[in-house]
C-alpha cells in the first residue's frame, strides 16, 4: 500500500504497524515522535497501531535550534 512519510511517498506491506514502519526506516524505538494524519501516535501504541493505505505520517526528532 501507498503512504506518505515526511512528505515523501512510500510503499509498505499491508498490516504494517507504526513500530514496523519505524523499523523499516531504521529508527526502531529510537527517540522519535510520530504523527499519523495530524494525530499523535503515542509511543506505547506504536506496536499496536496499524498504518493504513493513504496515511500521512510525520516522524520527527529534536535537533539543535534557537
Amino acid at each position, binding site marked *: 500500500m501507498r503512504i506518505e512519510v515526511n512528505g*515523501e511517498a512510500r510503499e509498505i506491506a499491508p498490516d504494517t504497524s507504526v513500530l514496523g514502519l519505524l523499523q523499516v526506516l531504521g529508527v526502531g524505538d529510537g527517540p522519535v*515522535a510520530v504523527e499519523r494524519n495530524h494525530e*499523535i501516535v503515542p509511543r506505547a501504541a506504536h506496536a499496536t497501531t496499524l498504518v493504513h493505505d493513504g496515511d500521512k505520517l510525520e516522524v*520527527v*526528532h529534536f*535537533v*539543535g*535550534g*534557537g
Partner: protein
Amino acid sequence: MTEALHIGSFVLRSRLIVGTGKYKNLEETKAALEASGADMVTVAVRRLDMSTPGGDSLIGYLKQKGYTLLPNTAGCYTAEDAVRTCRLARELGMSGLVKVEVLGDPKTLFPDVVQTLEAAATLVKEGFTVLPYTTDDPITAKKLEDIGCAAVMPLAAPIGSGLGIRNPYNLEIIRNTVSVPIIVDAGVGTASDAAIAMELGCDGVLMNTAIAGAREPVRMARAMRLAVEAGREAFLAGRIERRLYATASSPLAGVIGSKVG
C-alpha cells in the same frame, strides 16, 4: 550568584537561556553552552532525515548533561502547525515546556500575534507550560499572561539581527504590565544588550545567534553570562537617578586653593 528564576514549575539557576543552533560543530556547541552557564537550552523539532536516521548526538549529550530542553516551534507560520509541533515535542518525552513561535513573514521573522495567541490558548488548555515569543507590545504581553502563559518573551529586535534593545521603553512598560517572567528573546547583539535587558527589569534573556555567530562563540558565551548576571544585580541594586548636572563625589569642605563660583 543571583536568585533562581521560576517559570511555571521549572526552576532555573541561570537567567541566560541559549539556543543550540548555528554552531560550527558539536564540540563548539558543548563548549559554548558550558561557558554560558545556561541550564535551559532551546531545541527544534524537525522531520527525521530518512537517509541518516541515526539520531542527533547533540540531543543525547544535552539530556545526559541534565539541560532542561525548551523545544521551539521555529519555522511555523500558523497556530495549527505550532500546536502540532508542540504535541510532537511533548511526545518526544519532554515535559510539556514549549517555546511557541508563530512567525508572520520570513523577512522580519516577526511573530504573528493573532496566531500566537490562538496557539498559546490551545496549548495552555492542553496543559503545556507555554513560553511565547512575541512582539514588544504590552497589550499582547498582557493577553498572553491572561491566557495562562508561564512567561512572555518579547523580542528586542528581529531574530538574528543583533540590533540590540530597540525599544527599552516598551520593555519597561511590559515589566509594569505583567507579573509572569519576561524573557527577552531575539535581537541581542553583544553583552551590553543583554545587560540592558536585565537592567530594565526583565527576568532573563534568550539568545542563539549572538553567541554562535560571534568570532569566538565560547568567549562570547562567557561574556553573555557575565552581562546577564551584572544586569540583574544592577537592577536589584537600583540605579541612581539620571541628573543633568554633576554631583561631586569628594567632600566639598577642606579643598585647598581658591574658590570657584
